[in-house]
């Protein structure tokens, strides 16, 4: 049955509300699939439930309804085959950069020798350009360096699925660019499956194979799955000149400005996959003006 690496079926999350108010449905009818090695970005307005979805995939939160199947097995609870990069780095402040990475590596492979753990951890710190800073505590590192340690920690345990919640949200544009490049390079080498939340349309186009667009919450859905087929390797400085860049960008921005609101609570349904869109080829593109037209793509 499971032809896809990851299948999310009819996921919903409701929160009880104080008093006699009916429970708040943050999102429902969330269906999507991810293939092995795909880089997925999720974009949506603040409060639509992106972090909640990610936490459910990480096993840190439980869905109210629906299922999450990975590699043919339904998952519940956290596990080491899913690595998480948190929004605010969440490094352990009493450990050095190396200590933080080896902490995860040791948990992942308890049978490894001290030396193996150290060498493995160091190689990942080197990969994010932190060779030489491995003995510094997080408080002695810059914001960008801390985020890099977080990336090294997540990649070092070689998870089957890497979950990132706005990993570069707190960084300035220059640092952000540099780390995006590093992330692309590491991903190019390891080809991990990535599920990443971002607020930044340009970041999503640079990194993703597909961008999932969420309508506003409450009652949010994943409305569209936009294919980004700009060839790789992508170059951050030249990608803007790609002839298809602005077609894609306009489509995404247009969704955020108009359709995220006009489609709120009006698309999708039980078992319905998001509309698959390729703005460049013009397939699946909704009518200009954004009239909701329910198209039941089957993924």
């Amino acid at each position: 049955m499971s032809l896809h690496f990851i299948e999310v079926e009819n996921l919903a999350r409701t929160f009880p509300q104080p008093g006699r108010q009916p429970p708040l449905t943050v999102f429902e009818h969330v269906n999507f699939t991810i293939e092995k090695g795909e880089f997925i970005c999720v974009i949506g307005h603040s409060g639509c439930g992106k972090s909640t979805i990610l936490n459910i995939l990480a096993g840190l939160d439980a869905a109210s309804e629906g299922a999450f199947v990975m590699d043919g097995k339904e998952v519940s609870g956290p596990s080491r085959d899913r690595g998480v990069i948190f929004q605010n780095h969440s490094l352990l402040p009493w450990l050095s950069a190396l200590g933080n990475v080896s902490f995860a590596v040791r948990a992942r492979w308890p049978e490894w020798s001290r030396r193996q753990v150290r060498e493995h951890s160091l190689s990942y710190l080197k990969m994010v350009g932190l060779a030489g800073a491995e003995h510094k505590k997080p408080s002695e590192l810059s914001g960008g360096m801390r985020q890099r340690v977080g990336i090294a920690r997540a990649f070092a345990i070689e998870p089957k699925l890497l979950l990132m919640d706005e990993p570069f949200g707190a960084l300035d544009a220059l640092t952000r660019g540099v780390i995006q490049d590093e992330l692309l390079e590491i991903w190019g080498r390891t080809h991990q499956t990535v599920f990443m939340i971002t607020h930044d349309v340009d970041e999503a186009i640079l990194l993703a194979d597909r961008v999932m667009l969420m309508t506003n919450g409450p009652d949010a859905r994943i409305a569209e799955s936009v294919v980004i087929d700009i060839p790789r390797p992508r170059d951050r400085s030249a990608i803007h000149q790609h002839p298809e860049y602005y077609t894609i960008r306009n489509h995404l921005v247009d969704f955020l400005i108009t359709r995220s609101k006009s489609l709120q609570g009006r698309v999708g349904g039980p078992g319905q996959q998001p509309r698959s869109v390729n703005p460049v080829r013009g397939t699946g593109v909704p009518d200009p003006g954004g009239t909701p037209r329910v198209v039941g793509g089957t993924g």
Partner: protein
Amino acid sequence: MAGLKIRAAILSVLFLAVFLGAWQLATAPPGATERELTEYEIMMGLGAGSGAGMPAPTEVFGLAWEELSRPFHDSGPNDKGIGLQLMYSVGRVLAGFALAVVVAVPIGFVIGMSPVLNNALNPYIQILKPISPLAWMPLALFTIKDAATSAIFVIFICSIWPMLVNTAFGVASVKRDWLNVARTLELSSLRTALFVILPAAAPTILTGMRISIGISWLVIVAAEMLVGGTGIGYYVWNEWNNLDIAAVIFAIIMIGVVGMLLDAALAQAGRFLRYQE
């Protein structure tokens, strides 16, 4: 920065000199320094001979020199060296304190991790906490029947609360993010407790320990005055009965010095455990 420190040090020494000078003048025997004293006496409203019985600082220093040159001599129950007496007191404080650590830290840990237990035990902790440790003394003497052990029990009971409350607070306020890191790595509860919660809460726990040892040192003097026998508290009481005020003053100073050293030792330990977010 260095300039600031030097100026502060000079000022400190100056304050001490003024204090000792005033003390010396106030306690000087009348007649010997009559001319210098009159003006001072008028100003302070002191009558001649008001300092009688109060030892001059020189007297205290003389005694201190004598005592500190043979701190560990032992010539019977009423004549032991100050070092020996302090060792008895420090020993009791450390014994009671160590017992309290063994009890308070694990219990505080569990309370901090379980909101239910926290709420269930909180009323008892709140009632037991403000009880003066000396109020336990009769009960301790009655049940334990041994004066020295009773003193240790009193130290135990007074140092347990700050550590319990601080440990529970430190454990309860460990950041969710750090616990999530442990969860995504599938760390066992024991490993999470040892390698995430303990280091995260360590500075708060140590603050509790520092408060505890400070209170213990305050309480031991009073406790030893009650139970007698040995210790710095007994020494003070004994010298008061001998009306040897110089010895009492000397003991007071020593109590302050040792208390400061105990606090500094824990502060030093805290420096290793503290982290910056």
